[in-house]
């Protein structure tokens, strides 16, 4: 595994915080719920972490736990995007007036 220098990780981390603050700074109250739900779906990306550890899992315990993680993360990610889309579908044709 190639190791990423700690300073590079720190840089990425700090810059991401500012991007995260900035992108949602102007959200309207109407969109609080869909935005929360969308952000919730995005952290379902832990799925790739679950896949990475499942790839390397050898003992029964590791396999069981990592496969369970894959299932849970998939539910989080896929379900999250689908339910967000359903919410936003209802704004269709009426959005953008305000």
């Amino acid at each position: 595994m190639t190791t990423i220098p700690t300073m590079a990780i720190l840089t990425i981390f700090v810059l991401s915080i500012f991007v995260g603050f900035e992108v949602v700074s102007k959200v309207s109250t109407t969109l609080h719920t869909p935005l929360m739900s969308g952000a919730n779906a995005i952290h379902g990306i832990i799925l790739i972490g679950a896949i990475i550890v499942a790839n390397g899992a050898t003992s029964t315990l590791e396999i069981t736990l990592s496969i369970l993680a894959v299932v849970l993360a998939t539910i989080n990610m896929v379900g999250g995007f689908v339910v967000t889309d359903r919410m936003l579908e209802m704004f269709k044709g009426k959005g953008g007036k305000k």
Partner: protein
Amino acid sequence: MNSNLYALLGLGVAVSFVMALKGLSAPKTARRGNLIGAFGATIATVIVFFDPSSKEHNNTLLIIAAIAFGVLVGVPAARKIQMTQMPQLVALFNGVGGGAAALVAVVEYLNLSAEGKPSTANLIATVFTVIVGSTSFSGSVITFMKLQELMTTRPVVFPGGRFVIAGTLIGVLASGGWTISFGGNTPLLVMGLLSLLFGILFVLPVGGADVPIVISLLNAFTGLTVAASGYVLQSTLLIVAGTLVGASGTILTRKMAEAMGRSLFGTLFGAFTAKPQALAVGGEARTVKSGSPDDVAILLNYAQRVVIVPGFGLAVAQAQHTVRELADLLAEKGVEVAYGIHPVAGRMPGHMNVLLAEASVPYEQLVEMEEINPTFPQTDVVLVVGANDVVNPAAKTTPGCPIYGMPILDVASAGNVIFLKRSMRPGFAGIENDLLYDAKTTLLFGDAKDSLTKVVSALKAL
């Protein structure tokens, strides 16, 4: 796959998440933003199977089966859920995400421990992920149960509760320190269990009305756990995505708290300050004025201006379409109709807008609280459909009650107030509403949809 290509694709996915969040903050671009995020996540999931830095591919078939199973559970749940129950589904999705992050950290810990004691930095990141992920998981399950009304929506407070919570937190941190100093599986197990307990204790004292803020906060927490696992797994994509959610989630939590007029601090540390409170009783002796659908129709018919205040009861009764029929009928008769939307009408900020949009209520008729409040003195009739806490004057007059300080719709300053209610049962926050006993208030008991249908036919007969 070439490792540069892999990194480049990962960067593209990270950018797609930034664009998703950006898109989701404006009505015009929200849907597209969500789809961009979903697309990016799909790409990330496919390419991780070709990750050049992972040398072992032990369980590929099992992993694909697990993903398929997750899709089979997640998609129907998201498709079939009633829009009224959507907040608890989001809470549940967040909880399983937190649980997944904690499990990933545990497996990686077992894996690294097999090769000797992991580095301190890795141990700290692992401990953080397990603590916060487990807390988020059990906390989300409790918020789910509160919203689903599987348990009481009132704050659950017991004598000495704050000491139990503080004690548990100290135990969590101590076992974290134990894990970091000595490694081994026992301290990690103790820490995980204590964190699960802490999540439960942390959410129990939160009152029903504050639950959305807690969901949003746990959402931000889960984001940070994803970032921490990214550090342990050396994945920049996880670090970026997790941090984005953590940061935007924190801002969103603050904005929600502002919209509800709650102090974030008070909500979060309510656990440490809350005292068991006497339940509001003694209302039984007071009399209320209840009317018939005809009385209500007459009041509405001769009004110049009517404001409809929809609440969660409207959503439960699926009365969105009937309320729109009534509004259209009144508009035909020359009555000015508007909807007063409280920021947290329903269960979460923006929830009511979603529900009314489903019934194709024109967007222009939905008026936000700050704009509608000054117009109540010129309003003849306010029709409160299945709402209670958001019009409860106790928020202004009774310090110490659970909703004190929350901005409310000032319906008391209108000429007449009509409540459509199922019963005299108090609202979600569990407190009495004095307005129900006011002389200008008329109550129409029954299912919101039933009552509205009767009012519509009475109005047609006039």
